[in-house]
């Protein structure tokens, strides 16, 4: 280890090689050289192999016509589009499934985590069985199960399962109704925005008043009421019509509504069910990490049951929950790449699969894909560090 006390009298003269500082430098030099030689060796081999296979390199392929179709896109895309558009389609599909997965997995995971801690024996046992079963089975296997064994085995279009009146499930996927807004609906949206802004202002004011006078104001209920009542009034006065575009059986397939392909449904269901087990365990350990003394102390201060949870237990539990929760979100995003195995067109499947096969630019494609995931990961950890710094325990 390097010497830290350079202030003191010079250390007794030792032989050149035994000086930790010099030795450290030599070691680092050796390691750096080895790494450099290794990369030079790889670069050399790669260049030679590429030259031998008559392959060109460069990112110009991004602007070539892709020539392949993607059946599920969020932006306009066709066979005549260019590779960069295919890349964007894949990226957006990854983000879409990750975002939806994160939202639902969080909700379901919190329910499961709390159920596992429930004082009700049956409920907590059920939660344990669910969690221990699904978290110990590989996600890829679960995706195969949902895709090949469940969704592909669904009845044909004519015999679709219809549930909640308007949802149709068949072997071509899930058809859900789509709300249709007329041109006056923007007034309602404005009302919602105003209500949310009002809620924030109200919360700030209530907090100030609480700190100044100790009087409390039922912020949550009031702002919820405003959030419901204001848009409702605007809706009624403006006479906005919101219709539902309902999927209807027309000929050989359902028309109207939103049609979700089975690949998407299988991936989303698999990701949610799998990730929620991990989130449930995180939530459980977070709640258990808050010692019972905290609850008792809060009770001794005269806080009501709800306030004890809201003001004492949950803020402390969140401090334990958030960091691993963020890494689960990252895992979910990375795991969405398993869609390549069931054919949902996300980044890896569109870009590392089809694009790589067609262009043969292995190095560029792999590099870009890895950079995308690296960026997502770095952004998430930047956010996590910021959040951690905010909620970290302030010690004297």
């Amino acid at each position, binding site marked *: *280890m*390097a010497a830290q006390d350079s202030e003191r009298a010079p250390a007794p003269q030792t032989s050149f090689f035994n000086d930790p500082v010099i030795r*450290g430098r030599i*070691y*680092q030099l050796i*390691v*750096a050289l080895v*790494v450099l030689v290794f990369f030079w060796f*790889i670069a050399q*081999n*790669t260049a*030679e*192999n*590429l030259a*031998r296979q008559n392959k060109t390199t460069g990112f110009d392929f991004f602007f070539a016509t892709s020539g392949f179709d993607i059946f599920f896109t969020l932006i306009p895309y066709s066979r005549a589009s260019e590779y960069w558009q295919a890349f964007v389609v894949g990226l957006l599909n990854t983000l879409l499934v990750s975002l939806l997965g994160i939202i639902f997995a969080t909700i379901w995971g919190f329910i499961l985590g709390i159920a596992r801690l*429930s*004082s*009700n*024996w*049956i*409920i907590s046992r*059920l939660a344990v069985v669910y969690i*221990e*079963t699904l978290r*110990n*089975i*590989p*996600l*890829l*296997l*679960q995706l*195969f*199960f949902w895709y*090949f*064994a469940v969704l592909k*085995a669904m009845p044909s279009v004519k015999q679709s399962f219809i549930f909640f009146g308007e949802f149709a499930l068949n072997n071509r996927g899930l058809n859900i109704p789509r709300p249709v807004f007329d041109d006056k609906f923007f007034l309602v949206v404005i009302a919602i925005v105003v209500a949310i802004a009002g809620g924030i202002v109200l919360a700030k004011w209530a907090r100030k008043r609480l700190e100044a006078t100790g009087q409390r104001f039922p912020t949550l209920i009031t702002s919820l009421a405003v959030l419901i009542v204001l848009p409702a009034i605007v809706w009624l006065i403006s006479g906005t019509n919101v219709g539902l575009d309902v999927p209807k059986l027309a000929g050989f397939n359902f028309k109207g509504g939103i049609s979700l392909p089975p690949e998407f449904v299988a991936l989303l269901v698999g990701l949610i069910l799998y990730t929620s087990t991990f989130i449930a365990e995180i939530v459980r350990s977070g709640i258990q990490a808050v010692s019972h003394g905290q609850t008792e102390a809060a009770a001794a201060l005269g806080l009501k049951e709800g306030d004890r949870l809201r003001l004492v237990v949950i803020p402390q539990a969140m401090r334990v929950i958030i960091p691993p929760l963020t890494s689960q979100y990252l895992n979910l995003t*990375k*795991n969405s*790449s*398993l869609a*390549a*195995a069931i054919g949902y067109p996300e980044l*890896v499947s569109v870009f*590392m699969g089809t694009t*790589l096969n067609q262009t043969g630019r*292995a*190095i560029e494609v*792999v590099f870009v*894909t*890895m950079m995308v*995931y*690296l960026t*997502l*990961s*770095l952004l998430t950890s930047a956010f996590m560090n910021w959040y951690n710094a905010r909620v970290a325990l302030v010690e004297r």
Partner: protein
Amino acid sequence: MVVQSFNYVRTEMEAEAPAPGTSVGFVGWMRKNLFSTPGNSLLTVLGVLLLVWAVPPLYNFLIGKAVFIAENGETCRVEGAGACWAFIWARINFFIYGFYPMEEQWRVNICFVLGIILIVPLLWLDLPGKVLNAILFFVIYPIVAFILLNGGIFGLQSVPTENWGGLTVTLIIGITGIVVSLPIGIVLALGRQSNLPVIKTLSIMFIELWRAVPLITVLFMASVMLPLFVPTGMTVDKLLRALVGVSLFSAAYLAEVVRGGLQALPRGQYEAASAMGLNYWKSMLLIILPQALKHVIPGIVNSFIALFKDTSLVSIVGIFDLLQTVQSSSSDLKWAGPHQAITGYIFAAMVFWIFCFSMSRYSIFTERRLDTGHKR
């Protein structure tokens, strides 16, 4: 007022009355755990309804109406039949050995038996001779197993890795991943803690890059880019490519787990080690790592569980692991039937589940056993 005096004083204790019948025994347990509040009672009813709704069909599918013995898919195609276990039984050889030649399968069996003989005493915490055992398992066993499986010397028939498959390959990738990634992970963790800037930066870059990307991109990279990296004319075995990818990927995760253990050690341990005059490697090997690794055994086992589950991903780059053998058998026409695929998946899920669940139980057990700290 007349003060009355009672000269009745009890001299012996009244015998303890039994607790009310509603608070002890089964009834008491039910009142406490199932019906303590109206809300809880409602949850109990819902839970029981869920069980009544789900368990009988599941039982019927898996056991009650399942087909255990059949010559071909005929019996499984009968209306109302459950899982087709006969299909699994007929293909079990393929699921375990893949395309490994039938007459050479004793070699795989010897590997299994040797592995079990070596791993049981390693996991049995009370048995002595852990160092010898570890050397046997982590160094000698992989070499012996490779020679046995691959053949080509000692008069053994050569079996190329393309023929390996099924559970064998899943276990090979899992065990190799564990054996290779643990030392690399420890070195990376030490590198990240080092105060030599070059080594620290390189370690951080390696760990963060590998942790940021999904395993499937690593496997793709290994399968399309490794052949480009090696000198012209040299080919890299397909299985080896996957092994390199899985091991490096897992090493990055292990490095972070081990770093947690290193950071959890109080500074005094490091200072005490240098005060004893130990050099860096001695102080790490004798003082720091034994304590740090003990702290993070659960984390290490969790990484191993994740690694074992991740081995299923190699099926995407065309290696016949357990999942891929099941997947490819599910279109076997001889056994075609409505529950063919689902039975296969349930079988594979059970195999993975048994391995992962026992690992997680073992991790909990060691955590309790090795918890020599202060437990309140």
